[in-house]
């Protein structure tokens, strides 16, 4: 292995990459401060947030402190206004080499997943991807729990001989702390200077839209469809049932990949969202663990599947073994009537 020059013991403290877009912190960063706080307390060490951007400090430094950061490393420069892998990765490398954190957690967003591996390769350290759980042992070893084989198995990943121990963590899996008004983090301003030629990409356009519907992770009722739905035509049935219930529509990865679900944002499970509705109804979903870990916090789970051996039936409170095309029209009618009775 490539030699790391510093000793492991020199690496101290827990870091969280506080991703911001347009000066707004992403929720996943706050979630990571929540679990980072827990790890830092257990290790009796410090929790720091790393914030890169331009003119964002005033907007978010207080927020980082109030959600649990003891310290904020602030890198402010016009070149950091919009994310680009070169400047972000180079600056993270410099920061790590100077301040030597033991753990670095990054949200598994598209940008986090672009940045983290590049940083890990620059440092020559280990990186666990799409973690859904984190555990720290007495001697400071981070066990990152990651789904494998589409989530049918889980693996605990360690990084025993390298620092920092890096992990990207799926949004929605960690819990942010209650905001503690007035809790202050100290700010370490880090000078940003990079040679022009080290930045090799140019962002010519950024497009992003506001979410049109309630984010699925906040929905109280969810109707979700999987590969078993079979076609875009059939998918309308899923949507109709959702409309009747005033529910959000969810989807498994195959259904998103097939283009039935209109948005990646509807995807539930590993590399998608974790949901916690009162009622979840899954249709044509076999129930690989990949999806199940995303729905396990639902209050009541209903599954409709034609295969009596589909794993989701065991993970559900109520199961219906039937062709969804026979049953869903009845559910649509039944729920509609139930609504009118009120």
């Amino acid at each position: 292995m490539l030699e790391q020059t510093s000793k492991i013991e020199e690496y101290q403290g827990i870091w969280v990459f506080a991703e911001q877009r347009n000066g707004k912190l992403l929720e996943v960063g706050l979630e990571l401060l929540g679990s980072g706080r827990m790890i830092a307390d257990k290790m009796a060490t410090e929790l720091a947030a790393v914030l890169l951007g331009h003119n964002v400090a005033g907007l978010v430094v207080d927020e980082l402190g109030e959600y649990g950061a003891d310290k904020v490393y602030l890198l402010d420069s016009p070149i950091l206004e919009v994310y680009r892998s070169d400047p972000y990765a180079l600056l993270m490398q410099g920061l790590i080499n100077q301040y030597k954190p033991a753990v670095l957690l990054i949200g598994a967003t598209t940008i986090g997943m672009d940045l983290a591996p590049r940083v890990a390769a620059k440092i020559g350290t280990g990186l666990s991807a799409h973690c859904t759980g984190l555990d720290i042992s007495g001697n400071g070893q981070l066990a990152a729990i990651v789904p494998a084989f589409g989530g049918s198995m889980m693996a605990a990943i360690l990084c025993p001989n390298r620092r920092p121990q890096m992990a990207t963590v799926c949004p929605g899996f960690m819990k942010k702390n209650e905001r503690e008004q007035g809790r202050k983090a100290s700010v370490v301003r880090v000078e940003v200077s990079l040679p022009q030629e080290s930045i090799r990409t140019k962002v010519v356009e950024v497009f992003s839209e506001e979410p049109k519907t309630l984010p699925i992770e906040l929905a109280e009722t969810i109707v979700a469809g999987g590969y078993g739905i079979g076609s875009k035509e059939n998918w309308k049935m899923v949507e109709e049932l959702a409309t009747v219930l005033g529910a959000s529509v969810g989807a498994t990865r195959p259904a998103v990949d097939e283009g039935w679900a209109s948005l990646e944002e509807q995807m539930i499970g590993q590399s998608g969202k974790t949901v916690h509705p009162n009622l979840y109804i899954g249709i044509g979903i076999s129930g690989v663990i990949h999806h199940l870990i995303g729905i396990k916090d639902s209050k009541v789970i209903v599954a409709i599947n034609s295969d009596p051996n589909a794993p989701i039936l065991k993970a559900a409170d109520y199961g219906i073994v039937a062709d969804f095309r026979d049953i869903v029209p009845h559910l649509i009618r039944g729920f509609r009537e139930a609504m009118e009775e009120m």
Partner: protein
Amino acid sequence: MKPISIVVCIKPVPDSRHWEKITLDPETGLLRREGIPIIISPLDRNALEEALRIKENRDGKVTVISMGPPNTVEILTSALAMGADAAVLLTDRTFAAADTLATAYALASGIRKLGEYDLVLLGNESLDGSTGQVGPQVAEFLGIPHVTHVNKVNFIDEDTLQVKSRIELGYMMIEVKIPVALAVEKEINEPRIPSLLGVVQAKEKPMSTWSANDIGVDKARIGLPGSPTQVAKVFAIEVKRRGEVLTGEPVEVTRKLIEKLRAERVLPKVC
């Protein structure tokens, strides 16, 4: 336009239709995947398709490279049948059990040995590990920029690309000069099916097999010793609930379900 040289990294993965046959060895804690057919990781096929399309627009060469056990030749042959011009297999016992860092280092070393290249393409993530880490890490070891989540590629002049990179609820349009590594998503194209002629021609195309010594790697940086991450344990997790199956005619089942949900007080307030 001058000819372009494209390298596509492809990963052999167990065919997901057979994943239920993958078992856990209780003694070693390792996964047993013997006898499970391998395929090209799906997004790597999109990467290859994109390479072939770029080559069809301007003269050039497409080389596929893969690291894996000797049977990886099968997927390299399929890639040649799709239209790649040459294939390289990195195979050596010492490459085994590599994590993404050690894998990226070995692949980058193989790509360096190939010589001049303008583009490195690969799938944004693999079907099995799904880490999405190898692309940026190969780029780092080659000292070239990378763009991930790519779903559109456009040359605006012979050295400059405009690529569309997906972000949550939107995209970024990024300009970058070659050489660059691009990790592509499924939306970028529809991979072709090899033609019969392609399958026949594949047998005539060059296929090189290189060992660790052939590509001059630092042995401490490949395989298990070169992998900073270790799998401490693998376990199947279970999400289990009461699993009460409601039976009867559709009307009956619907009535039962609504009753249950009402009793649980989970029906939305409008109901």
